[in-house]
């Protein structure tokens, strides 16, 4: 098994303590920084697919994301701008009136692992705060809104419409969360919807690469 394959296997197994050493060994073997990074991104994609298929659960996905993060730390000094981002910046937050952050955090991790720089605005985020963050960050390609409460679905719709009406362009909007269906997502005016964190990363890539 090559070093890169070892990195991929250990990342998928969530071995956060082993991955940094293996990444360093892969570098020592002369493997390219981008090759290693892309291999790790592919591995996280595989983990996301397994999550969507119900083959792994949140604990395993969190451990894989942690392993990815530790591996990227080794690569960061060698990356041109110190960033592993290749797909632009994603602004993410839980909508106003909603304090749930677990699903949002999972999506943030998966999106970051897919190659985005993530700016996490936290919970209870108003439309104005989303707009402020889009203006304040360069290369925003994606805005992700999360919500768990049925009572804040209206806030999600309002936020999407306010962001879309702001005149700001260059990004796509994706929504998700336990009560959100593809039908409801369509009524918000969002560009995309994902039912879980694994498919959120796939959909995010699809949206910005379209």
């Amino acid at each position, binding site marked *: 098994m090559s070093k890169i394959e070892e990195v991929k296997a250990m990342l998928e197994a*969530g071995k*956060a303590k082993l991955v940094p050493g293996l990444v360093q060994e892969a570098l020592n073997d002369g493997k390219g920084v981008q090759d290693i990074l892309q291999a790790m991104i592919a591995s996280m994609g595989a983990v996301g697919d397994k999550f969507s298929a*119900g083959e*792994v*659960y*949140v*604990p*395993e996905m*969190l*451990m894989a994301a*942690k392993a990815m993060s530790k591996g990227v730390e080794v690569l960061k000094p060698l990356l041109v701008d110190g960033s592993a981002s290749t797909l632009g910046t994603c602004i993410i937050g839980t909508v106003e*009136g909603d*304090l749930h*952050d*677990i*699903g949002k*955090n999972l999506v943030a991790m998966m999106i970051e692992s897919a190659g985005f720089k993530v700016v996490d605005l936290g*919970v209870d985020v108003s439309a104005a705060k989303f707009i402020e963050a889009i203006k304040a960050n360069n290369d925003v390609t994606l805005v992700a809104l999360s919500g768990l*409460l*049925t*009572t804040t*679905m*209206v806030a999600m719709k309002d936020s999407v419409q306010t962001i879309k009406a702001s005149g700001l362009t260059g990004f796509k909007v994706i929504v998700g969360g*336990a*009560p959100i269906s593809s039908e409801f997502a369509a009524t918000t005016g969002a560009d995309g919807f994902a*039912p*879980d964190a694994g498919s959120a990363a796939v959909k995010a890539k699809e949206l910005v690469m379209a």
Partner: protein
Amino acid sequence: MMTKRENALKAYRHETPDYIPCFLTDFSMIQCCPDLERYTGITRGKDYWGCDWTFEPAPINAPMPTPGVHLFEDISEWRDKLKFPDLEGIDWVKQADIDVHSDFFGLLTGKGITPNEDGSSIYDEDKKDLLRLAMILNGPFERLHACMGFQNALMAIAAEPEECREYFKAMADWKIEYLKKIGKYYDLDVIMFHDDYGTNDRMFMSPDTWRKLIKPELARIVKACHEAGMIYEHHSCGFVEPIIPDLVEIGVDALDPIQACNINAGKLKKKYGNKLTFVGGFNNQDAFERSDSTPEGIKAEYRRAVDLLAQGGSYIAFPMGVAFASFAEPFIEEHFKYGMSFYQNPANK
């Protein structure tokens, strides 16, 4: 004629009662020394474990673990950092007297611990026909993430299962002693033991992980509850279908709220209804708690769940929700119209 309590007990014994018991009309509910379980004030504070909580106003109306404030973040530290409350240090006679006189729904709706305005107790003569239930919050898994944060807790389960197992054993030991105190100092019928295991579409951990880490300890808790003379009802939000056979196996008497994401609830009721009482089954997300919910939609959802789960008895109507006040009226209206006469139809018995 049976009392409401006797009628509800038939449902808990998996028999067919005279009418569908309903939490809102047939039960007296309390918490037993609620500060043991979480902060009970309406600003920010700690519970008896040292966990930090911040009260979130309506529509949540509940304390939530204060973000970023953890007792420990590494599971290996639980023995040093987690101080189990001293159950012997509580004056249980005095505490029980406070609890049975407390306004249960006031506590749930953000008023903190306040006595019933009329000074009444769940033991009063005019409440004697109601079934008495105590809600116990923050079971072993919920306490774990209250202590160390949700993501840290889930990663600990994946990375250090053996250490988590030791924690769950110790937590079950404490809960068992707590149940013994409740059995001794209160006169109750049912314990509703909260420990959430499900998200909207899957469990937080794999069913096998749950079986290895939590099931053996939950089995001990259920046994202790029965030995203390009380029925064990487990509360877990979210999707828990994969472990329903396990809950039956370890002697759980009833399960709530069986949210609608458990799409096979009807089949499971047919299979396990003679051993497990199904409590709830309502679709809060799509029917009860949407901004565009209508009384007609709420009533239709009541009938859907009842038609799906109540046949043959072993069923209790329990509409768990955060925006409860917004749907209670049509719910109760339909309960009286449909649920109270449901078993008069021989086909439903």
